[in-house]
């Protein structure tokens, strides 16, 4: 090299002659790197017993939700018996699991619905609310946070004042207004949860983006002439992704709790079975005072198990994103 002319020799002068046959296969390489990263995260995540148990629990509920029509002995909203005049239901059946002779595993409701079937179909509603709300919460929050944090200035001010405004909106009045405007349905509850949940994710991701954009590797990309979109997608997003996964997993649990709570106060979808609507019906028929524990205890246990599993998985993931917690 040194004997070349001193004016402007280039180390890459002969690089064009190198055959491009050994060009690395980009897609295969990217896929392999992703596999390795996911594998590493997976092994870190499943390191802990509580996380493994929580994942088994979630997997169990997912399977139940998928195969609900095969597992449930009866349609969830079909009356199993009726009085002669088809109006009044006098008595609920006791569960056969504790020796009742009704033939229904968890008995029936005062309306004559099979509780076991309702419980199984309720899993669908819970997971639907949880997963859709989590995906949108994490997605919207991450995108808004990245844009606000990276561009700063007026964009940041506008988006963060919107977040401040949303922080001022209380949950129940918002749901009541949405349901009054759009009618009671599971989708409106999901919508309300999304509207009110992405604000926290956006705040956290923005603060991360604010510190990331000042890091020298972002400056290096700017010096190389990278576009804003390139920097946001290649440099900022991969570094905040663990944090948005974390907020997504917490959002699952919050969304399920919110749906149960909203349904319990009677704003749920009357045509969908969810654990929250089951609790609401049991309260309406005073199941507690009649000692009909099989009506309200099973949905309560299911809500508790799924929510606790969601939080434990999020907690386990938090230790990946923040090694100081380990």
């Amino acid at each position, binding site marked *: *090299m*040194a004997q*070349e002319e*001193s*004016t*402007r*020799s*280039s*180390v*890459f002068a002969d*690089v*064009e002659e*190198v055959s*491009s046959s*050994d*060009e*690395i296969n980009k897609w295969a390489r990217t896929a392999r*790197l992703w596999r390795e990263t996911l594998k590493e995260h997976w092994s870190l995540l499943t390191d802990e017993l509580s996380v493994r148990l929580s994942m088994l629990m979630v997997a169990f509920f997912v399977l139940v939700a998928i195969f609900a029509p095969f597992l449930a002995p009866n349609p969830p909203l079909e009356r199993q018996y009726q009085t002669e005049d088809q109006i009044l239901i006098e008595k609920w059946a006791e569960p056969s699991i504790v020796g009742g002779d009704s033939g229904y595993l968890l008995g029936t409701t005062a309306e004559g619905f099979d509780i076991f079937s309702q419980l199984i179909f309720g899993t669908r509603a819970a997971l639907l609310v949880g997963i859709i709300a989590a995906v949108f919460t994490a997605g919207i929050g991450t995108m808004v946070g990245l844009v606000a944090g990276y561009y700063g200035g007026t964009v940041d001010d506008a988006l963060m004042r919107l977040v401040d405004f949303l922080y001022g909106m209380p949950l129940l009045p918002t749901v009541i207004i949405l349901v009054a405007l759009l009618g009671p349905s599971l989708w409106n509850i999901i919508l309300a949860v999304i509207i009110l949940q992405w604000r926290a994710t956006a705040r956290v991701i923005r603060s991360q983006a604010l510190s990331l954009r000042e*890091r*020298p*590797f972002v*400056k*290096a*990309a*700017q*010096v*190389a*002439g*990278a*576009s804003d979109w*390139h920097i946001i997608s*290649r*440099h900022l997003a*991969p*570094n905040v992704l663990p944090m948005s996964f974390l907020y997504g997993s917490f959002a699952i649990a919050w969304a399920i709790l919110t749906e149960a709570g909203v349904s319990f106060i009677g704003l749920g979808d009357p045509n969908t079975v969810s654990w929250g609507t089951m609790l609401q019906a049991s309260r309406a028929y005073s199941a507690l005072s009649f000692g009909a524990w099989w009506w309200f205890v099973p949905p309560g246990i299911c809500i508790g198990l799924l929510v606790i599993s969601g939080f434990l998985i999020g907690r386990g993931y938090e230790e990946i994103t923040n090694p100081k917690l380990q």
Partner: protein
Amino acid sequence: MSHTTHDDALLQVRNLEKHFKVDAGWIASILQSVSGDDPDYVHAVDGVSFDLRRGETLGLAGESGCGKTTTGMSLVKLHEPTGGDIHYNGQSLNDATDAELKEFRQNAQMIFQDPFESLNPRMTVYDTVAEPLRIHNITNETARVQRALEFAELLPAEQYFDQYPHELSGGQRQRVAIARALVLDPDFIVADEPVSMLDVSLRAGVLSLLERMTDEFGLSVVYISHDLSLLRHMCDRLAIMYMGKIVEKGPTDQIIENPQHPYTQALINAVPVPEPNVGRERVELAGEVGDVIDIPSGCRFKSRCPDYIGDVCDQVVPPLEEKAHVEGEQAVACHLYESVDGTDPAEAFRQGQSVSASGDGPESTPADD
């Protein structure tokens, strides 16, 4: 101001200014717009001019906060200058088109101080080095990345392709950063304290790599450092900065052997000599760097200067000019010396004062307006 413009100047920096607005919050800015006050500015770089010639290494020295890093970042367009201009190959960057700016981006690269921060922790070595090539749609990616890594003495290069920054040592990371800067085959590189964060044992290796880079590539390099012994070793020419201005510039040996500006003298005296018997007259600077928001009038160094000579320092901004008693192209911004055309600034100031009693010197620019 006399600028010897060379035909082989790759980069001509003319009166570059970068002022940062002091953000006092929106309430304060509303109050300011109501009361008509001007917002405060930090004068990080305040009128800096120099040439960077082809194949030359230029050192920017000065203490922390003197604006050397801001100058370096302005050179690669990380900052939009608030005043002055940079000419690249004779083309002004202020009114460059997008295509011209893209070409400039291909030819201007930067090496950062902290190798632990300058590499994306979630990108492999290969992706980091290949990124500039992808941005500029340059073909033959793999061969170029391999060549750049080999040049940076990361051998065998394939072994490093899939490694993440946290798997590398500090020296290896800085080599990756150098490979990334070189992969586009740039015209010039700004190296901001390239070895100050490395272990002393690793510095020599990285420095010899940087030296090889300038020798074999024929690159122009701007070194930013506070370490004068390093700059003496690496650079052809030096520019000493103080509070956003160049106080002295010229060939390295001349400045180190024969510093003229009191600030340069103090800096050079602060470099330790590895010889116990060498006694040296030490000039210790009193006080701190002045206020970069309310720039003092006259010479910015006056409050710390051991050779303060009175009113002329207090009121007249010393121009950066070649002085009568110094040979070569060394330029100094100080009132102690006669300029090359024979005017003694202190004498001229006294005469100017007696002619017009109104007082302000010819060069005086009240900076805090």
